[in-house]
């Protein structure tokens, strides 16, 4: 090794040491600047660990799990609805087939929101999926609330999650005091809309009242973050309208039955008696069904099955 060569080697080693020291200093400086993120522990893995599992592409992985959750929910819900409306399908208590399972839904949503803890739509839509009653969903409002509370760990400033928790307590669990508390907590947050506070008060005083339910769904339709959520809220509003109409029709039917002393078995009887001018239709335009003197929505209608209203016994 000649002198020049030795000199350049020494220079290279010195440069590596110098820049190595600078690199360590910069690394330490950057470590003291944490980025806005959450590091919450979950049942499966932490966000960081999950993120490293897919290197830098954890948002994409979260999207894939979200798409899987939607497809899983949609396909299961469709099968369950088809079974429910099949006239040859025996009642669940006599059926040999087990009910359609939604057991992976929460796991898929949990993984998706673990990979992307700010995946707003996965929390809000996921909670609707989880809380939906069978056959539309698994009927697990407890898991819906758990998912929304997980959202609040990352985004405690979002009143929308408290609104959704209150909604689940109101509509799915019929626990009006807790619903009111959740609405109130949302209303206390900066940027919350004025109506959330009045919703909290109304829920506490008149929980279970159909008008309160209507108000709740209307607010949800108006504040929906996408067309699907707005459509779902509008369906619920139409279902409430259908319940109103069915109650009025039932009064007419009962009156005709009392006058003729015979059960009303078809719309023709009512038309001939002059009680109705046409076969009544639900808000979607589908004809109502009349069976054994009771009015129901057709199984072909997008309003089928009608929801169990808070504060009422299950619909037959």
């Amino acid at each position: 090794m000649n002198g020049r060569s030795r000199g350049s080697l020494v220079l290279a080693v010195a440069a590596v040491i110098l820049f190595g020291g600078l690199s360590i200093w910069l690394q330490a400086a950057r470590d003291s600047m944490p980025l806005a993120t959450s590091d919450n522990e979950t049942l499966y893995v932490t966000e960081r660990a999950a993120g490293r599992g897919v290197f830098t592409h954890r948002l994409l992985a979260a999207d894939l799990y979200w798409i899987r959750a939607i497809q899983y929910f949609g396909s299961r819900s469709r099968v369950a609805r088809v079974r429910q409306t099949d006239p040859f399908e025996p009642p669940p208590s006599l059926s040999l087939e087990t009910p359609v399972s939604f057991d992976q839904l929460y796991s898929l949503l949990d993984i998706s929101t673990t990979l992307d803890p700010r995946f707003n739509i996965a929390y809000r839509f996921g909670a609707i999926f989880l809380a939906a009653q069978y056959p539309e969903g698994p009927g697990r409002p407890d898991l819906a609330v758990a998912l929304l509370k997980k959202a609040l760990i990352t985004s405690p400033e979002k009143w929308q999650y408290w609104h959704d928790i209150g909604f689940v307590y109101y509509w799915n669990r019929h626990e009006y005091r807790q619903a009111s508390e959740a609405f109130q907590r949302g209303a206390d947050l900066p940027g919350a809309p004025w109506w959330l506070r009045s919703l909290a008060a109304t829920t506490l005083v008149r929980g279970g009242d159909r008008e309160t339910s209507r108000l709740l769904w209307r607010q949800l339709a108006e504040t929906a973050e996408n067309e699907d959520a707005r459509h779902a809220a509008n369906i619920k509003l139409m279902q409430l309208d259908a319940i109103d109409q069915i109650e009025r029709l039932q009064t007419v039917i009962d009156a005709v039955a009392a006058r003729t002393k015979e059960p009303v078995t078809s719309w023709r009887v009512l038309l001939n008696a002059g009680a109705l001018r046409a076969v009544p239709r639900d808000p979607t335009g589908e004809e109502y069904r009349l069976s054994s003197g009771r009015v129901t929505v057709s199984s072909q209608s997008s309003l089928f099955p009608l929801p169990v209203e808070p504060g009422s016994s299950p619909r037959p």
Partner: protein
Amino acid sequence: MKTLGWIAINGFREAVRDKVMYSLVAFAVLLIVASYIVGELTAGQDVKITKDLGLSAIGIFGLFMAIFIGIGLVSKEVERRSIYSLLAKPIRRSDLVIGKYLGLVLTLVVNVAVMTAALYLVLAYLGTEESDLARQAREAPLLDPALLKAVGLMLVQLMVVTATALFFSTFSTPILSAVLTFLVYVAGFFSADLRNFDQVVDSRVVQALARGLYYMLPNLASFDVTAQVVHGLPITWRYMAVTTAYGLTYITILLVMSATIFSRRDFK
């Protein structure tokens, strides 16, 4: 300096002749097709998913370019025996290494710029179909300039990977270089765990070793700010500056070592 520029431009031309640009077309088509398909599947999350998909695609395509072109910078010259004619010219070996590296960086910059433009175009198109509801619900602007922060740091990350590939290729075979670079890339995402080793291990020797490794391996996870950008969270200019400075320092170390090894390599 002129020599460096000449080598860099030639390196860029060579990379273009390597049909790298075709991957861009593939990327753009993939992105456009995917964003249309996912829009139908994701309950109104097409903009978020297009951003996620677009940024991930830039990272993945960029990584392939960085590794597979990076390892060939030196080995191709040796393989084709064109290294002899190059070394016969009045060019310093260190200039050759650094010039070739700059050529590849230029290729990466052009590729990433085209991919970013494609991403913005797709987002702009999605904007024409976006409903008022979706517009109000968005966490970040559709054509968010902050996307450039994520792309910028991703570019620095790719430059680190390229320098790593170049470093290994100065003393190893192309396949081994690719494997080693990929291993460093993977380790680079886990290196932050080494920092917290003292919380799980009692041995002081292991703790010191882990901390040493933490500073030795490139911390590639710190260049990833896609989550913050997609969700409209703040990324300070100070963070950008320190992380970029860290990346450039790391690249300098790798280039000094690559140039030193290459200068001492015997091609007889």
